[in-house]
């Protein structure tokens, strides 16, 4: 049986761990509020832009001069998986779930004989992806300086992706992130980033009314397509951030509760040991007295 002193030390250490997890939970809860507001407020724009892009893509007459971001390279061989995770851990299965979704997709693509590369955003994906798919990482975007999701980051990533695309380095880009549903539920999500996914029912696009374009179709598309990529990434960053804090809050709440249970158990054990020691001591004194 553990000595009294060891038990006491153990209780002390679990208590200080509990203090830390409790503080982390409180901080995560406070940050969650802000991140959640930002994510929810950012959704309409991303959704509307996506809708406009999709309807535009289905209406535009595709010709040889159409931008490649819209029409694709005409091939489907080289896939780029953009995996967005958080910079920090201690958030339960948050990052693992995103990586798992990306891995499932990657394995499918590899099995179908496609070539797969990774574009990593956020520190947590790095280790996991490098372990499962060594030497497949195309680029690793360092986000360690960013405290919150910023549009500039999304813009920089989008610029980089588009430059690589124009350079004919890949055919299709998929975006992996976690969609924020509530503090308890985050859903790993996959989205096709490049080329723009066509709206469902694009087949009957011909019957839709002719749309006027000002200044002209190509100028608008040239302006919109890169913007769309940036906004989709920005949306992913926002959603991820909210999801991360939600997940961290839940994980830390569980940790605090577990620490509490552990303290109770250890305290009971401590008290029992103490009583046993006292009883032994009494027996010794009494038998000593009797011997006189």
């Amino acid at each position, binding site marked *: 049986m553990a000595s009294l002193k060891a038990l006491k030390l153990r209780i002390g250490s679990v208590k200080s761990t509990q203090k830390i997890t409790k503080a982390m939970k409180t901080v995560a809860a406070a940050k969650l509020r802000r991140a959640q507001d*930002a994510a929810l*407020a*950012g959704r*309409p*724009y*991303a959704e*509307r*832009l996506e809708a*406009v892009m999709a*309807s*535009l893509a289905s209406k535009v007459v595709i010709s040889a001069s159409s931008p490649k971001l819209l029409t694709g390279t005409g091939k489907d061989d080289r896939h780029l998986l953009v995996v967005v995770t958080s910079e920090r851990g201690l958030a339960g299965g948050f990052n693992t779930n995103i990586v798992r979704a990306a891995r499932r997709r990657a394995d499918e693509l590899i099995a179908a004989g496609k070539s797969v590369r990774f574009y990593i955003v956020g520190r947590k994906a790095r280790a996991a992806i490098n372990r499962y798919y060594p030497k497949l990482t195309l680029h690793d975007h360092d986000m360690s300086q960013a405290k919150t999701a910023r*549009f500039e980051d999304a813009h920089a990533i989008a610029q980089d992706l588009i430059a690589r695309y124009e350079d004919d380095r890949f055919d299709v880009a998929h975006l992996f992130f976690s969609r924020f549903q509530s503090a308890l539920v985050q859903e790993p999500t996959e989205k096709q980033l490049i080329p723009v996914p066509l709206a469902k029912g694009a087949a009957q696009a011909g019957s*839709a*009314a*002719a*749309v*006027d*374009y*000002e*200044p002209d179709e190509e*100028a*608008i598309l040239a*302006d*919109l397509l890169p913007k769309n990529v940036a*906004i989709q990434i*920005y949306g992913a960053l926002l959603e991820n951030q909210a999801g991360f804090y939600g997940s961290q809050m839940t994980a830390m709440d569980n940790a605090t509760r577990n620490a509490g249970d552990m303290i109770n158990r250890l305290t009971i054990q401590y008290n029992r040991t103490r009583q046993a020691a006292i009883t032994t001591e009494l027996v010794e004194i009494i038998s000593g007295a009797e011997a006189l």
Partner: protein
Amino acid sequence: MPLHFELVTPEKLVRSEGVYMVTVPGTEGDFGVLEGHSPLVSTLRDGDLLVFVTQAAQPATIRVQGGFAEVNERGLTVLAERAE
């Protein structure tokens, strides 16, 4: 039948309501949008968006920067990079 008008920025949904008419600062000149306008997509220049809630009302002015406007059968959507 009012025109369904939405003004959205990356940060938030600024407006979503039924209005009488909106004047939009397009790259190639301002244009007014009423209910039943033909489908149109236009980029925006930095300028003022005039929102007429009813035919007689004084317009509300919203300053917008960058972005574009789309008119379709459901109404007018202005996606601006900034609005105030």
